[in-house]
């Protein structure tokens, strides 16, 4: 890692010599692999090594950034000079700049972010896995006759970070994922289902057979879906769609949106904004988890922050700039693009998803949502959805072509049950949960 750090330090020096008052450079080297099978054919095989340099410079607190893959000496000199010059056109404020002090302990001991098996597993074995995802899914039911492709993908990445305050640190991560996307056909109806598993290591990844059969069941389960009636009822978000709701909550918690007035949670620190079932945490130091790193994009050590504590809003999530601006401390959530999650999750409950369904007199179990626009400023939420109609504690029939709508404030307050099926297969994750009442719009 010394040589990668050396390049990062070299670029910091170039920026300071070009007139920057402060500079921070990150250098990432990633090795990426992906393969896709369709039927009994390996349709795609992609492999590359990618190098990228990121630079942030400050000139009288005014900021400019560079992201470049042109690492030639002249390319670096030219663009570093240009970005330092461009900072003159930005207008700084006293909050702009690098973090004040060196991180006391950014050790990655015990975080288990890197597994050797990701780069060691032979390509042939990964292609075999992709083919097996296809064949297992198709063997489950004669109505599975096609697929959107089964994929096995992995990457390893080295991140080196240096700044003009003397920071120089690096760490390595690995990532492996498999996804199956079978299509069930019944007469003229075509229904796709997909399931994805991801982990730091192939050894800890969910088995190929389980992934293929879960995906197949998702597709088969939706055959014969109908449009539900328009109604108010309980809505259970299965864990993948629950995670998408958490992603909306994350955006409202991000200090950048809070400072811009683009959050329904602005000015509500210390207030009760959710039910007592709602405890939301951002933790960058959970071993093996995909959002774990020793420090954030500014070199600030990650930590554990309880964002909502049994419904009470405790903190927003900050990088250095917004922490200073809003009078707080960085929570170690700086990312290359602004403020990002570490492992951001809803604390699980005691009961299974099946128990939640069994305890629901009338409602919908949402398995997939489409659409992505949430008005964070008001918390207005509306998504296209598909899933199951639940009646008297049982799954009655599949439903699709409907929406679930409400308001994130109201949804947080109405969470009345949280399941125990939390899994850290993304950076923002959630167990399944139930909202006591939302609007389902269908016929």
């Amino acid at each position, binding site marked *: 890692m010394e*040589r*990668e750090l050396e390049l990062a330090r070299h670029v910091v020096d170039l920026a300071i010599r070009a007139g920057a008052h402060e500079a921070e450079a990150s250098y990432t*080297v990633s090795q990426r692999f992906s393969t896709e099978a*369709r039927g009994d054919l*390996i*349709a*795609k*095989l*992609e*492999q*590359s090594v990618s*190098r990228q340099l990121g630079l942030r410079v400050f000139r009288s607190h005014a*900021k*400019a*950034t*560079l*992201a*470049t*893959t*042109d*690492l*030639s*000496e002249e*390319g670096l000199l030219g*663009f570093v000079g*240009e*970005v330092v*010059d*461009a*900072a003159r*056109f*930005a*207008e700084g404020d006293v909050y702009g700049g690098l973090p004040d002090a060196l991180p006391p302990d950014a050790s990655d001991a015990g975080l288990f972010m890197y597994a050797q098996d990701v780069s060691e597993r032979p390509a042939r074995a990964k292609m075999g896995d992709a083919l097996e995802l296809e064949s297992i899914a198709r063997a489950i039911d004669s109505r599975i006759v*096609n*697929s*959107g492709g089964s994929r096995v993908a992995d990457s*390893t990445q080295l991140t080196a970070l240096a700044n003009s305050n003397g920071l120089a640190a690096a760490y390595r991560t690995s990532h492996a994922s498999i996804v199956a996307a079978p299509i069930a056909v019944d007469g003229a109806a075509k229904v*796709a289902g997909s399931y994805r598993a991801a982990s730091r290591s192939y050894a800890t990844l969910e088995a190929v057979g389980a992934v293929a059969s879960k995906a197949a069941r998702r597709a088969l389960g939706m055959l014969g879906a109908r*449009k539900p009636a*328009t*109604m108010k009822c309980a809505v259970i978000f299965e864990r993948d769609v629950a995670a998408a709701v958490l992603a909306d909550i994350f955006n409202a918690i991000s200090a950048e949106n809070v400072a811009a007035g683009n959050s329904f949670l602005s000015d509500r620190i210390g207030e009760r904004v959710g039910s007592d079932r709602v405890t939301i945490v951002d933790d960058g130091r959970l071993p093996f988890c995909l959002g774990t790193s020793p420090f954030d994009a500014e070199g600030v050590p990650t930590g554990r922050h309880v964002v909502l504590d049994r419904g009470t809003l405790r903190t927003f999530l900050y990088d250095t700039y917004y922490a200073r601006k809003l009078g707080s401390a960085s929570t170690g959530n700086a990312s290359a693009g602004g403020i990002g999650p570490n492992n951001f999750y809803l604390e699980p409950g005691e009961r299974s998803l099946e128990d939640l369904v069994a305890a629901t007199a009338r409602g919908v179990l949402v398995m997939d949502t*489409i*659409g992505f*626009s*949430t*008005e964070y*400023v*008001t918390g207005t939420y*509306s*998504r*296209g959805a598909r899933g199951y109609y639940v009646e008297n504690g049982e799954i009655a029939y599949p439903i699709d*072509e*409907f*929406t679930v*709508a409400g308001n994130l404030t109201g949804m947080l307050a109405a969470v009345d049950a949280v399941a125990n099926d939390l899994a850290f297969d993304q950076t923002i994750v959630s167990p399944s949960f139930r909202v006591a009442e*939302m*609007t389902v*719009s*269908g*016929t």
Partner: protein
Amino acid sequence: MQRIERLPANPRAMQPDAQVFERVLTRALGSGDYADAFYERRVTRSFRLQDGRIREAAIAVSSGVGIRVISGERTGYAYSEDLSERALLETTRVAALIASNGADAREVALPARPERAAQMYGPSVPERLRAEPATYVDLLTRVDVAARAADPRVRTVNATCADQLQEVVIATSDGRYISDVRPLVSLAVQCFALGKERGSGYCGDGGRTSIDVFLERSPEQIAREAARVACVNCDAVETPAGEFDVVVGAGSGGVLLHEAVGHGLEGDFNRQGTSLYSGRVGERVASELVTICDDGDIPCERGSLAVDDEGTPGQHKVLVENGILRGYMHDRLNARLMGTSSTGSGRRESFRSLPQPRMCNTYMPGGGSTVDEIVGSVKRGIFAASFAGGQVEISKGDFVFMLGEGYLIEDGKLTSPIRGASLVGNGPDAMNRVVMVGNDSRLAPRSYTCGKAGQFVPVGVGMPTIKLEKLTVGGSSLGA
């Protein structure tokens, strides 16, 4: 293994020349039926305005070569940011791993220099467009002033101005050797206003042309539009839930075509039989009032391309004509496997990605009704004035699209604005519900980006005002 090397001695990351491409493609073709190389150098400069000042300047440089080897239905791909011949030959070896048909090596021959694609990005684009930082600062400052002056309820103005120049060279094993220089500028404004409630409004414009586009489409116009929508949304009421007649406004209503029909007509899904439109050319898939085109060759639009990312010229395609499905959009791979020709729809996000069949600018030509006739015909319904975006599930064809600005229609008149609504439907079903088409077809402001399998490319959409009978409106109010 990761490693670091000393900085290369070559003075600049120069594009490879014809001889290097010939050696790369000859090696690639040793094991495949077809190979191509895609060189890209893209420089994006942007400035961001927040809290009334320029908060950040940013430069992004992306340069590298992607090498693809195709053997039957198999595709191998690898890319390199290191443009030395040694690195490119190694990248070729990796890309060619998938294909091993043992075919005899064939020498690939290219012209000495790439042919320059026809110019279509507006007359004012200089060979190397690069605006001065002061130009961006001026545009953004004018946005801030105009948005705040538009209405006292405007509290926050965020804006980004970006200008990008993408140089590409495409070299193929069948001897095609083409270059293109593509500009792309954008000015995006988001306002938040505080009235009875909070409201947000967005407007963006630009196109594949020079920053001079903002002489015609002024930053003040864009800022005032974002401010107007934010203030309208301050007074918005909860959207009703249930089935309603929906009038979709001209311009950004084209998002409906993009989602409900367009994606389903992309060649890959149809070759693989995963789209609900697979095998249905010549069949009725929409009301006879519906005609849908996709054009790659409209000057300066975001989705336009002199040549696509496989070197095929951008084209005008009729996808649906009077309700009848006429054809799909193809890249080279899917066209060849389906026994047809590329429609100039092979696009990729960057040299790091494989081409996919994609839309360019998707729109519906005008029909016979006036807007007043259309709105006047609705007793109780929704007017969807503009769309923030949309999404579709390809196999069954269910789509959703999200309103940026919408109103209730009561007794043939627009009344209250509505908040944060989405509309859901099924592609062919919704297109069969089109009962009126307006005479006001136009392209939306140039601000849309389409995502597919993780790749994002700029696109255009357009539409006249249309009326759909009984679409599901995803609001939260169950009133009346």
